[in-house]
């Protein structure tokens, strides 16, 4: 498995206390060559402490969000999140029970990309629920820039072995979008 160094992990904004040398590994990456409505990571190795999803997304129309499903569980009541966001000239917070990983913004249009990082902590632990957090942003196809800080929980004690991310409202991502799953040891 290809490795990144401690130095590189620092530059991802991770606390150095979390990391040891060669502890940051890319598990799988999708670079889209055409329109696609979701990406899925399966058979996720259970050898890491934390998972990180990095998203760079293009879309033919502004997406009002994206969903994250763990272990193919689409039950809305299994998920909760809280977010704090800016919407161009406005701001807000939201708390919901559903699978949204990005409540308002993930995409833009074919010339205005969206970008995000989402971390899922202690995903192999079978004694507690799974928590995650993230930050993402995008333009809305016009002049507004959106940003989003979000944290959530998947109310299952099952180890996470699969992840699926899909835009809301039957949107699709365009060619050039890139979504990568990393594993963090330590």
């Amino acid at each position: 498995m290809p490795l990144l160094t401690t130095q590189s992990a620092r530059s991802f904004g991770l606390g150095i206390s979390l990391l040891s040398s060669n502890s940051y590994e890319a598990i799988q990456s999708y670079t889209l060559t055409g329109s696609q409505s979701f990406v899925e990571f399966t058979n996720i190795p259970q050898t890491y402490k934390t998972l990180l999803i990095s998203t760079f997304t293009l879309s033919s129309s502004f997406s009002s969000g994206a969903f994250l499903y763990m272990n193919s569980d689409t039950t809305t009541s299994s998920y909760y999140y809280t977010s704090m966001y800016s919407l161009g000239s406005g701001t807000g917070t939201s708390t919901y029970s559903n699978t949204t990983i990005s409540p308002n913004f993930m995409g833009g249009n074919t010339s205005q990309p969206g970008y995000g990082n989402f971390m899922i902590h202690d995903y192999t632990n079978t004694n507690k629920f799974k928590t995650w957090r993230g930050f993402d942003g995008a333009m809305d196809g016009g002049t507004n820039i959106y940003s989003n800080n979000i944290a959530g929980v998947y109310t299952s004690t099952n180890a996470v072995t699969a992840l699926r991310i899909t835009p809301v409202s039957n949107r699709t991502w365009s060619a050039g979008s890139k979504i990568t799953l990393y594993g963090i040891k330590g």
Partner: protein
Amino acid sequence: MPTITYEPIQTYTISGSSTGSVTFNSIPTIYTELKIVASIGAVESENDLYVVMNGDNTSSNYGYGGIAGWQTGSPATNSTVEFKSTSYAGCLVDYYGPPALGGLGQHQVVISIPDPQGSHWKIVRSNSVNYKPAGTPGVRGGVDELISVWKNNAAITSLTITQGGPRTWLAGSRITLFGLKGA
């Protein structure tokens, strides 16, 4: 899965007190993502920190949004501010940037620029923290999470990180550009 490597491209370590801007020129076009990691102290009071793409100083070509928190007063009280879509002459990467106070303050920022060669507007994510020693009037610490955009489809060939004001940085301030290959 392609092989992933993560390489330092260039590092500036500030040796004097007259520098408040550095430029990374002739950036190799082989990377799928660029990152700048900066640890900076400032000589004068703090001001905004931003990244200029390809020497483009036209403020209308940039925009940003984000969320920040900081402390004010003594004893400190918590405040937050949510940013608006206001134009700077570069991608804003820190609001009220590096602290002054003779190097006793600390400021760190991590800047990520995915797909720097792509034919689309360039998006920049930054997170930053700064701190001033206790007893200092005004802002004592802060944290920012920002998204900035350069409204241009051109490939990135140069990056200038600079501070508004203008302000200058303390000796020992360090700014490194990294390149990510692969996924």
